[in-house]
């Protein structure tokens, strides 16, 4: 008996019991669908983060201050001094305070993200004004209440009027708009355009938080990164007296940390997928066992007229594999439509379709059919034809 014939018989049997077959498949459908969707979500968000980090350039070093001791603190001034002493290797040191603020012009208000920083931020992050100017050192020195705004903010609260020179209220305080940032290409990622930049020391006062926890250091060349990191570590250790009070990381380290997180996420996903497929597989085994005992007589007849053990085994095995295979295909379609219509509708994440994971989860669904179909098929093939024929 050829495989084509066994295939035909399996199709017949599956379609003559549509509801049951579908319910049997459900475990596999949900398993495969959710794996594909979850992987797309995870890979999509990882790719986005990775891209934005890589977009910043390779010779950046990030300093995060974690210590709570406010008596000993590295200040912007001290770090500038450090930059001055290592002119050869350090191009910029840029402090950063991130937060949220409510801005108001006339009666229009908007919530947006607030960045307090220094003039060098413009060059380091390539955020140039399309109108007006960026922050200047004068603004820092004299703590000017000036703001550079993103296009999303400009279009919203100024409603098309030229914002440069206009007044804007940030958390109740009046600022003067000195510039509007260039619009970032794509437009999908709103966060780059939906922000407002003010002088670092003004931001410190505004947020009543005198500690600056984030600095970005740009080394003059990629080769200088390691030596600058070493010097920064020594410098900060001297200030804090504790190596654990701060974190100095370069791009590569951040990316590898991200890789670790992604790896863990993938393991968790894999685990969930494995569990759901095992559950689906047990369901299939269960139904197949019921089906074998329901069809005992059929098996007896087939054996009496010449079916060998192998024929019966293959028949039931192919049936199980087809159930999981069809379940796998429906699961893939389900997963892809979740990516397309659910995840795709969230602006923040561009899902990544991963052919590997799609094929992999489909392959696993077939394997589930083989593994969990084997026992019932074996049981069927072992039936004694005399007893099977007597079965009512």
């Amino acid at each position: 008996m050829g495989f084509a014939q066994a295939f035909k018989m399996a199709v017949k049997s599956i379609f003559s019991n549509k509801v049951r077959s579908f319910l049997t498949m459900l475990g596999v459908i949900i398993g495969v669908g959710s794996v594909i969707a979850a992987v797309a979500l995870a890979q999509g968000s990882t790719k986005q983060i990775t891209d934005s980090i890589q977009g910043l350039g390779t010779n950046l070093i990030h300093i995060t201050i974690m210590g709570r001791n406010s008596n000993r603190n590295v200040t912007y001034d001290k770090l500038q001094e450090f930059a001055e002493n290592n002119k050869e290797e350090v191009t910029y040191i840029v402090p950063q305070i991130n937060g949220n603020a409510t801005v108001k012009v006339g009666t229009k208000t908007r919530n947006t993200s607030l960045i307090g920083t220094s003039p060098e931020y413009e060059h380091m992050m390539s955020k140039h004004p399309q109108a007006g100017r960026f922050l200047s050192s004068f603004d820092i020195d004299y703590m000017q209440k000036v703001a550079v705004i993103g296009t999303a903010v400009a279009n919203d609260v100024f409603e098309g009027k030229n914002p440069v020179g206009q007044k804007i209220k940030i958390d109740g305080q009046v600022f003067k708009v000195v510039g509007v940032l260039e619009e970032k290409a794509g437009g999908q990622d709103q966060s780059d355009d939906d922000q407002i930049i003010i002088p670092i020391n003004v931001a410190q006062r505004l947020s009543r938080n005198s500690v600056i926890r984030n600095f970005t250091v740009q080394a003059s060349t990629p080769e200088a990164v390691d030596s600058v990191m070493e010097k920064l570590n020594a410098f900060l250790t001297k200030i804090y007296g504790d190596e654990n009070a701060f974190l100095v990381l370069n791009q590569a380290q951040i990316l590898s940390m991200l890789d670790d997180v992604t790896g863990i996420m993938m393991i968790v996903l894999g685990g969930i997928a494995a569990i759901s497929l095992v559950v689906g597989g047990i369901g299939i085994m269960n139904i197949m066992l019921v089906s074998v005992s329901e069809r005992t007589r059929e098996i007896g007849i087939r054996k009496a007229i010449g079916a060998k053990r192998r024929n019966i085994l293959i028949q039931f095995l192919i049936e199980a594999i087809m159930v999981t295979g069809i379940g796998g295909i429906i699961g893939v379609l389900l997963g892809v439509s979740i990516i397309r219509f659910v995840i795709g509708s969230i602006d923040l994440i561009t899902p990544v379709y991963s052919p590997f994971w799609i094929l992999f989860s489909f392959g696993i669904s077939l394997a589930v059919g083989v593994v969990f179909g084997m026992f019932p098929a074996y049981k069927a093939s072992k039936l004694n034809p005399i007893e099977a024929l007597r079965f009512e």
Partner: protein
Amino acid sequence: MIRIIDMCKEYRMGDTIVKALDNVSLHIKQHEFVAIVGPSGSGKSTLMNMIGCLDTPTSGTYYLDGKEVSKLSDNQLAEIRSRKIGFIFQSFNLLQKLTALENVELPLVYQGVRAKERHRRAKEALESVGLGERMHHKPTELSGGQQQRVAIARALVSNPPIILADEPTGNLDSKSGEDIMKILKELHGKGNTIVLITHDNNVALQAKRIVRIEDGKILQDRGVD
């Protein structure tokens, strides 16, 4: 064709051992039409299972078509059943989900006959039992007599040397039963070897030879005029 020598079959029922067949020897030649009769529990079903290669004896030998089959494995027995024996059962034993034609094709499927050839031969077999018109019907759409005729076609389709009929008229009204017996007689006329198992003397009398079995032993073996 069939040569059974000193065959015993024992079953264990709890603590006691039941001898379903007790030193049975039987010789059936080609083109014979033999009826095996006996009351229920006499061992005739066991004998049929032996002749049909569905079971293996506890002791004794069985030559089928010149080949010893009493010690073959399950798979070898399946092969013998497929090539040498056409079964006709009391309860027809057709697959309900398949059409008459597909049911008749099934033995050929397991012999690995190609679809086209299978189709042609199954059609021929159905026509020979007068069911050419109804070959695309499912068993549930056929009467008992028609279902048994489909079963006969299935038994014939692979041209087996022996046709083994187990109470073929048992589930049929007398008219359909007569039809079935007529077909069997025709087959015998065409040269088939037929072994008929029954408890009904009137049916048995239509065979050419009657073997009476009781308590696992052959009681009587005589020809019919």
